[in-house]
């Protein structure tokens, strides 16, 4: 059975890189003794695939990973057993069964919500929160995109699906995400700084992912929404 598992990354564990997170999950599942499925061959590995990596320093309450199990306990029990092996900072919050044929959560990712907050003593917060609208309603939001070989200017405004102040202290944004069009919230804040005439100081902002979406019939749904709740244990498949 294939499960889509939602997880969070907070606290000091935001400093862990993507590869380390993968290793962390592998080991936690081994410690929990869960019946994860392995690939065949001389060096078998757990069948597990993660959605878009979260940059070092970012926090999130909506990360996803698809894991294949030979069989499983009820969803709640799977969560409990995994969480018993997790450290403060990373925990699993949702366990849903998806079809074997479902595309990977990585491939399905279409958009994500972020909350940007301000680290003390870097910027005057109101300068941003009060000017979100004029920033967003510019004709174009051009930014210099550097690749290894070239630099080119791109307009990122079509990739910003939504942006608005949230209270006096934060900015909410919904951005395109995934393998085709991916816009990082950092890029948006850099452009915002340019617009306001400030230097971009990466340490000035804290980025938190609120949800990750797939697109179905033109609508954005959380990545986990297509799964079914697992109320009863699921036995091994008949071959």
């Amino acid at each position: 059975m294939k499960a889509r598992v939602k997880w969070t990354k907070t606290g000091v564990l935001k400093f862990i890189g993507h590869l380390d997170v993968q290793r962390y999950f592998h080991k936690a599942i081994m410690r929990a003794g869960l019946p994860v499925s392995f690939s065949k061959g001389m060096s078998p590995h757990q069948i597990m695939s993660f959605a878009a990596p979260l940059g070092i320093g970012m926090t999130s309450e909506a990360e996803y990973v698809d894991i294949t199990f030979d069989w499983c306990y009820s969803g709640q029990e799977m969560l409990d057993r995994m969480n018993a092996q997790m450290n403060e900072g990373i925990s699993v919050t949702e366990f849903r069964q998806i079809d074997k044929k479902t595309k990977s959560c990585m491939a399905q990712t279409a958009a994500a919500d972020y909350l940007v907050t301000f680290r003390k003593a870097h910027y005057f917060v109101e300068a941003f929160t009060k000017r979100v609208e004029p920033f967003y309603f510019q004709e174009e939001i051009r930014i210099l995109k550097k690749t290894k070989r070239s630099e080119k200017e791109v307009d990122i405004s079509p990739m910003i699906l939504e942006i608005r102040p949230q209270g006096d202290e934060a900015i909410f944004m919904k951005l395109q995400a995934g393998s085709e069009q991916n816009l990082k919230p950092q890029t948006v804040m850099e452009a915002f700084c340019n617009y306001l005439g400030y230097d971009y100081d990466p340490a000035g902002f804290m980025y938190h992912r609120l949800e990750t979406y797939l697109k179905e019939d033109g609508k954005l749904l959380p990545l986990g929404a297509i799964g079914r709740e697992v109320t009863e244990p699921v036995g091994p498949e008949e071959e």
Partner: protein
Amino acid sequence: MYDLALTEELLLKIEKPVRYIGNEVNMVRKDPEKVDIRFAMCFPDVYEIGMSHLGMQIIYDMLNRREDVYCERVFSPWTDLDKEMRIDRIPLFALESQDPVFMFDFMAITIQYEMCYTNILQMLDLAGIGIYAKDRREDAPFVIGGGPCTYNPEPLADFFDMFYIGEGETVYYQMMDLYKEHKAAGGSRADFLKKAAQIPGIYVPSLYEVTYHEDGTIRSFVPKIPEAPATVLKQVQMDLDHTFYPKKQLVPYLKVTQDRCVLEIQRGCIRGCRFCQAGMIYRPLRERSLAMMTDVADAALESTGNDEISLSSLSSSDYSQLPGLCNYLIDHYRKKNVNISLPSLRIDAFSLDVMSKVQDVRKSSLTFAPEAGTQRMRDVINKGLTQEMIRHGATEAFKGGWNKVKLYFMMGLPTETEEDMKGIAHLAETIAMDYYQLPSEYRHGRVSVGASCSFFVPKPFTPFQWAQMCEMEEYQHRAHIVNDEFKKQHNHRSLSFKWHDSKTTVVEGILARGDRRLSKVIYDVYKKGCIYDAWTEYFNYDAWMEAMEENGLDYHFYTTRPRDLDEIFPWDFIDIGVTKAFLKREWNKAMAGEVTPNCREKCSGCGAARFGGGVCFESKSKVD
């Protein structure tokens, strides 16, 4: 979220911030307020290296079993953070509590290799407790050194309050008790050191006086006070079954060098290779029981979730329970998809059978360590591996499907001739020839024979402690002779040859057999901005040479000079059980090209039997 020693801004600026946040699975958490002793266990290299070290996990577990002690870990900050800490005046901190190390009672530094000496100074400096022991305040932590390099601690003598010479399991509890008593009674720093000097295995360098002959060799090495013993006896854990072994090992987030569970199946070695320090200082060989090893394997895999387990010892093939242990691991863990890795195995029918079960034959390579290219040279170093054994092993392996072979050699060994050097290329060629002469059904493409060579560094407490080293240029020259010879071989396209940096060899050679006068050199090198000498990208040979000169020391004295058989060595005050008389005998036999049988064939009366156990008391013929 608890408080970190580094700000988020800083953590985001540096490489791999996860090196500094602690909080790993199985990390021990205690309230520092509620313990009597705070113990900082320091590894003077980067996190990924230090966390791969089993010894550290053993001590961590052992000390933390005591309720009155909180043992925490400290690693060298990488060069990027090092700079920031100096600018922002951030003191060196421990991972667990994130508290500065200067608040601790002990700063215990494990010294695994010579090239980490400047990192030791980095740690002392960043801790802010004074680099020199004499400059330390009354309330500073006691700095204690342990590990293989303490078998010649003299180059570091000025920086440490004390050294512990022996295996970690034995006297730390006694030391903790003594310290608690001392703290309660309220004595001075000097008082405690005087008392500590009486614990077996503890060496307090400031309590000894060294005088020199005009030629720079040692005239006398004597204690200044009666409390300090004239010789310090190495401490050994004789019963390796009833002792500490961590059941719950730490699980790093980062991919560390040894990202696997490690089973230390035995300590010591029966072989008696004459260049090998570990083979002498860990005598006698002591095995752990199969029952203990399977217990530890179960517990370690369960508590870490690691997907690999590896055996650790100097020569695993000599472990009497090897078949039983391999079968256990294969039966229990292959089906759970745990990889089993078996380094330092002699290649024979048994090991090939086991290896074919646990690894992908096509992808993996076989390793041999002939160490020298000719039989004559192998007899000098007492490496009991013949060309026939290697060829036979390799041929069997080829038939089993392998076609990659790695060979390890040393150059610059005593009495080495051009013949011996070229022999390295010839041996590699012979193995390749053997492959191509096999019937075609055994051959899968081209064979690859990779030879890699390090330069020999004579170490204290080995029969080769009297050996002369070469000049740096001479090492290069010899490597080129071998390299040219490789190019002349018929199958040279199937062969490769790599060699180590000869500059590092020279500095390692200076430090390995160095004396107290080198403390100032190490200090000066550090002050020139050197750290991470073990990392080629940071190693600065010229800085070392300059510092030697500035201190009026000639490096030849430490490296190329012939040493008299009766010279007093800086490390002679240490008694490792193996006697100097035995080492001399072995040196003479080496010069005569005679081999010595291993401990299981015949005891050679090295002296280690005084510890009363291990291989010395297995039934076998004995000399009297």
